[in-house]
């Protein structure tokens, strides 16, 4: 199982799903309407490391973080 957490303003509790890669996570999240609308402007981290590679393999226990647009300062 892989944990997906939604950061900042995305109002969604964490989810646990079976996924072998970020591509699986993408397919899963695209089917949740309230999340899908965020995806085009969200970045992704795996185990707290930013990740740009959709083919990234995932292992059980990995945490995928969904990061919406930021504005610190």
């Amino acid at each position, binding site marked *: 199982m892989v944990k997906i957490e939604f*950061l*900042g*303003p995305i109002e969604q509790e964490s989810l646990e799903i079976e996924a072998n890669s*970020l*591509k699986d*996570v*993408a*397919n899963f*999240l*695209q089917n949740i309407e309230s999340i*899908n609308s965020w*995806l*085009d*402007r*969200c*970045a*992704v*981290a795996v185990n*707290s*490391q*930013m*990740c*740009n*590679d*959709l083919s990234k393999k995932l292992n059980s226990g990995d945490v995928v*973080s*969904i*990061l*919406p*647009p*930021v*504005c*610190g*300062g």
Partner: protein
Amino acid sequence: MELYQGSLDIKSIFSRWLDEERESNYGAFIPFIGTIRAENNIEALSFDIYEPILESWFNGWVERAKKRGAKVKMAHSIGDVPVHTSSYISAVFSPKRRVALELIDEFVEDFKANAPIWKYDILDGRRIYAEDRSTPMSGSGILASKEDN
């Protein structure tokens, strides 16, 4: 890197940083202080931070600064920060003026674009995501791509 609940005590952070590097022989010290502006009737801004990624983002800058003989420091607020108080201070120390001036610019701009911090307006007691002033982090959108293989 330092995170605090609510407004920063800028004078005390500044003084401590100055003391910490007093004997380090840096010729130039440039802090950047961000203060909440009164606009659009907001009472405060409020911040969420994802600390593990902020930490690794910041450590990347510590390394980048080190290669140029410089040092970076940073403090940020978590939660509500009333108007006319400060939520952010960062700083560059360098032996050289040019390096310091270039680094503070690059550091603050990358902070704005890639530090995992989310900002909310506090308006009539409600907390509203400042979406129009927010920037997608680099690499955003990869999960929106359609499976086509």
